C-alpha cells in the first residue's frame, strides 16, 4: 500500500506548476491562498514520510519502481525506496519545510512576487524528496542536478541585485563540478558492474542490490580504480555539503532571502552530500583510504570554519560557517564508520540550524535589513520568545543541552578514543560554543542601544503569530528529539563549554575593550582566503585559457580562413584566364574534359579489375 503512494512526494511540484501556470494565465493566486496551499502540500508529504518512518520500524525496506528508459537490454527505472534513512530524513525535510513556509509568510510579506517564491520552494521540496526517496543512483543523479538548479533559482530570487545574480551563478558553477564527479563515478560503477555480471537490471545501481554491486565492483576493478571511484563520490558530496576545499559557496549563497537560507543552506541542501555518502557507505567502507579522507575533510572543515565564524560580523555568515563546521562533524562520524550517528546528527543539526536562521531573520528585519551584528543589540527586550528559542538552539549547537547534547555525545563517544582526539574534539566544541554565544550576547543582550532608534519595523499581530508558530514548532522538536535519543553523559568537555559561555558573557556583555590579534584575525575574517584562492585560480586558468584560445583563433582557425581566401583567389584567377571569349577554346575545354573523364573512368575501371578481379 505504501509503495503505491509515491506520487505524494510530487504534490509540491504539481502545486508549483499550478502556481506558475496560473501566473502565466493572468490569474494571480492571493498570497494567503498560496501560503495555505503550499503548507498543505508539505503537511501531506510530512504525513507520508512520517508514516514511512513508522512503517520501517516494523518492516523491511520497500521498493517500487517503473520503467523510465529502455535501451536494448539496459533498463533505467524511477520510483521510490523506503528504508529507515530515507524516511527519517524525508520527515525532517518536511518538518523544516513546514516551519519555513509559515515563517516566510512573515518574512516575505512585502514581496510582490510571493507566488514565484513559493513555487520555487515547492519545486525544491519536491526535488529534495525525490532525491531522498530515490531507489537507485540514476534517479539520485537526476534529482541531484535538479536540487542544484532549484538552489540557483532561489539564491538568485532577487535577481535584479547584481550581487545576488553573481552569487547564484558562482554557486551553480561549483555545483556543476560536483555533478560531473557524480556522473563520472556513476558511469564507471555502472559499466564495471554490468560488464562483469551481464545483469542489465543492475545498470541503474539500485540501492536494494547494493551489496551485490559492491562485491562485483570490488572484483571488477583494481584497488586504485576503486579508490578513484570512491573519491569521485566523496568530491561530489563535499561540494554539495560545503566542506573544506569548496566551503566558500555557502558564504556566497547567503545573499538569498533568509527563509531560503534557513531551508536550503542550513539544513536540507547541505544534507544531500552527507546523505549520498550514507547511501553509498557500504561501497566506500570497503576502501580504508577514502574513509580516512572523509575523516580528514570533516576535521579540517570543522576547525577552519569555526575559527572563521568567531570573527565574522555578518550574522548570516556566522551561521553559514557554523553550518559547514557542523556538517564537518557529520563527515567525521562517517569517517568513523558510523552512518547512523551521522543521520542522527544531521537530523538534530537541521532542526537547530533552521531555527537559528529564523531567529537571525527576525533580527535582520527588526534592524531594517542590515545584517551587521555590530549595530544590533537588546533584541531580548523586544522579542523574549525569540531570544529563548535562540538560547535553546545555541545550547543544542554547542552540545550543552537538548538534542545537541545527545547527538554531540554520540559523536564524542565514537571519536574520543585517545587523548589527542579528545583535545581536538574539545577544541571544536569550545569554538562552536564561543561563536554562537558571541552571536547571542551581541545581538540579543549587547551594549548597543542605538539600534531601534528611528522608524522601527512594524510587526502586525499576524506576523507575531507566524514567527512564534514556526520558531516554537522547531524548538519543540529540538526538545522532543532529546527525549527520544539516548542521553549523553556529563564529562569535562561539558564543563569547558559552560566556562566558555561565561567567558563570552564577560567579553561581549561588559565594558571590556577587545584587541584584535593582528594576523589571525585577518585570516579568519576572510575565511582562510579560500574564496580569494578560488578567485586567484580562476584568473590564472582564465588567462591561460584565453591565451590558448586566442592562439587557436589567430593561427589555426585564421590560418584555415587565410588558406580558403588564397585558394579562392587563385581559382578565380585561373577561371578568369579561361574565359577567353573565343568559342574555339570552349570547344577545346569540352574535348579535354571528355578525354580526361573517359580516361579516368577507364583507368579506375582497369585498376579495380586488376586488383579485385571479377
Amino acid at each position, binding site marked *: 500500500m505504501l509503495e503505491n503512494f509515491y506520487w505524494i512526494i510530487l504534490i509540491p511540484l504539481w502545486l508549483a506548476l499550478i502556481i506558475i501556470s496560473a501566473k502565466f494565465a493572468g490569474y494571480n493566486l492571493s498570497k494567503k491562498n498560496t501560503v495555505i496551499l503550499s503548507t498543505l502540500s508539505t503537511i501531506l508529504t510530512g504525513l507520508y514520510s512520517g508514516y514511512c518512518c513508522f512503517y520501517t520500524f516494523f518492516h523491511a525496506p520497500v521498493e517500487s519502481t517503473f520503467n523510465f528508459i529502455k535501451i536494448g537490454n539496459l533498463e533505467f527505472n524511477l520510483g521510490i525506496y523506503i528504508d529507515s534513512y530515507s524516511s527519517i530524513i524525508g520527515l525532517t525535510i518536511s518538518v523544516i519545510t513546514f516551519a519555513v513556509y509559515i515563517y516566510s509568510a512573515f518574512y516575505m510579506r512585502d514581496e510582490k512576487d510571493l507566488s514565484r517564491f513559493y513555487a520555487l520552494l515547492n519545486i525544491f521540496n519536491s526535488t529534495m524528496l525525490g532525491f531522498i526517496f530515490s531507489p537507485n543512483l540514476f534517479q539520485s543523479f537526476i534529482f541531484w542536478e535538479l536540487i542544484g538548479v532549484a538552489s540557483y533559482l532561489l539564491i538568485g530570487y532577487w535577481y535584479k541585485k547584481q550581487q545576488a545574480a553573481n552569487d547564484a551563478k558562482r554557486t551553480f558553477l561549483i555545483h556543476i563540478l560536483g555533478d560531473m564527479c557524480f556522473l563520472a563515478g556513476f558511469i564507471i560503477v555502472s559499466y564495471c558492474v554490468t560488464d562483469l555480471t551481464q545483469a542489465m537490471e543492475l545498470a541503474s545501481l539500485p540501492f536494494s542490490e547494493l551489496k551485490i554491486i559492491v562485491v562485483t565492483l570490488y572484483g571488477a576493478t583494481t584497488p586504485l580504480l576503486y579508490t578513484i571511484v570512491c573519491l569521485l563520490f566523496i568530491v561530489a558530496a563535499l561540494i554539495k555539503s560545503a566542506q573544506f576545499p569548496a566551503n566558500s559557496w555557502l558564504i556566497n549563497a547567503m545573499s538569498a532571502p533568509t527563509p531560503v537560507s534557513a531551508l536550503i543552506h542550513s539544513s536540507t541542501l547541505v544534507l544531500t552530500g552527507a546523505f549520498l555518502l550514507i547511501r553509498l557507505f557500504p561501497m566506500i567502507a570497503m576502501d580504508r583510504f577514502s574513509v580516512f579522507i572523509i575523516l580528514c575533510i570533516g576535521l579540517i572543515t570543522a576547525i577552519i570554519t569555526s575559527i572563521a565564524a568567531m570573527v565574522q560580523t555578518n550574522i548570516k555568515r556566522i551561521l553559514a560557517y557554523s553550518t559547514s563546521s557542523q556538517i564537518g562533524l557529520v563527515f567525521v562520524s562517517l569517517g568513523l564508520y558510523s552512518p547512523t550517528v551521522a543521520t542522527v546528527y544531521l537530523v538534530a543539526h537541521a532542526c537547530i540550524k533552521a531555527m537559528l536562521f529564523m531567529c537571525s531573520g527576525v533580527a535582520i528585519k527588526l534592524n531594517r535589513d542590515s545584517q551587521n551584528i555590530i549595530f544590533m543589540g537588546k533584541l531580548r527586550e523586544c522579542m523574549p520568545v525569540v531570544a529563548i528559542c535562540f538560547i535553546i538552539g545555541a545550547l543544542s549547537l554547542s552540545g550543552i543541552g537538548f538534542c545537541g547534547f545527545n547527538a554531540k555525545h554520540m559523536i564524542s563517544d565514537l571519536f574520543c578514543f585517545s587523548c589527542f582526539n579528545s583535545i581536538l574534539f574539545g577544541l571544536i566544541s569550545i569554538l562552536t560554543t564561543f561563536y554562537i554565544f558571541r552571536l547571542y550576547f551581541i545581538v540579543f543582550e549587547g551594549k548597543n542601544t542605538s539600534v531601534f532608534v528611528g522608524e522601527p519595523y512594524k510587526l502586525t499581530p499576524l506576523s507575531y503569530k507566524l514567527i512564534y508558530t514556526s520558531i516554537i514548532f522547531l524548538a519543540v522538536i529540538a526538545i522532543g528529539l532529546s527525549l527520544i535519543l539516548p542521553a549523553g553523559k556529563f564529562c569535562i568537555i561539558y564543563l569547558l563549554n559552560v566556562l566558555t559561555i561565561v567567558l563570552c558573557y564577560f567579553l561581549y556583555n561588559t565594558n571590556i575593550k577587545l584587541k584584535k590579534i593582528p594576523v589571525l584575525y585577518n585570516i579568519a575574517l576572510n575565511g582562510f582566503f579560500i574564496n580569494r584562492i578560488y578567485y586567484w585560480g580562476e584568473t590564472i586558468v582564465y588567462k591561460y585559457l584565453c591565451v590558448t584560445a586566442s592562439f587557436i583563433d589567430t593561427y589555426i582557425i585564421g590560418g584555415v580562413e587565410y588558406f580558403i581566401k588564397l585558394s579562392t583567389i587563385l581559382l578565380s584567377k585561373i577561371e578568369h584566364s579561361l574565359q577567353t571569349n573565343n568559342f574555339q577554346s570552349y*570547344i577545346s575545354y569540352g574535348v579535354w574534359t571528355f578525354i580526361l573523364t573517359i580516361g579516368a573512368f577507364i583507368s579506375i575501371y582497369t585498376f579495380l579489375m586488376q586488383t579485385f578481379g571479377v
Partner: protein
Amino acid sequence: MKSNVIYCLTTYNYQILSLIMFIIGLLGVILLKNFIKILISAEFIINGINILFISFSSYQPSDSYIGFTIVLFTTGISAVVLAIALYFLYILSKKRINTDTEELFNDNESMLNNNEELM
C-alpha cells in the same frame, strides 16, 4: 618463298580512317583562325562520322540499308548547315574583309561595351 598473304581492307581500317578524319576536323575547328577553314574542318568531322556509319552498316543483314540512309540524312543536314553558315559569312564579308574569328569576336565585344556606355 612468296608470301601468300593478301592485304585486304576490313571495317577496322575504315574505322581508323574515320577516326583520323574526325581528329583532323576537330583540330581544325579548334586551332584554325579563318572562318572558312573552320567550316571546311567541320565538313571533315561530318564525313568522318559518315564513314563510320557505313562501316558499321556492314554488320547489319545484307538487305538492310539503315547506315546508308542515315548518311544521306547527315549529308543533307550538313549541306543545310553549310548553306546557313555561308550566308552568315556573306553578311559579315559585306561589312568586313577579314574573317578571322578573334577579331570578329573582339569587335563584337567593343560594340557591346559601347552599347553599355550608351545605356
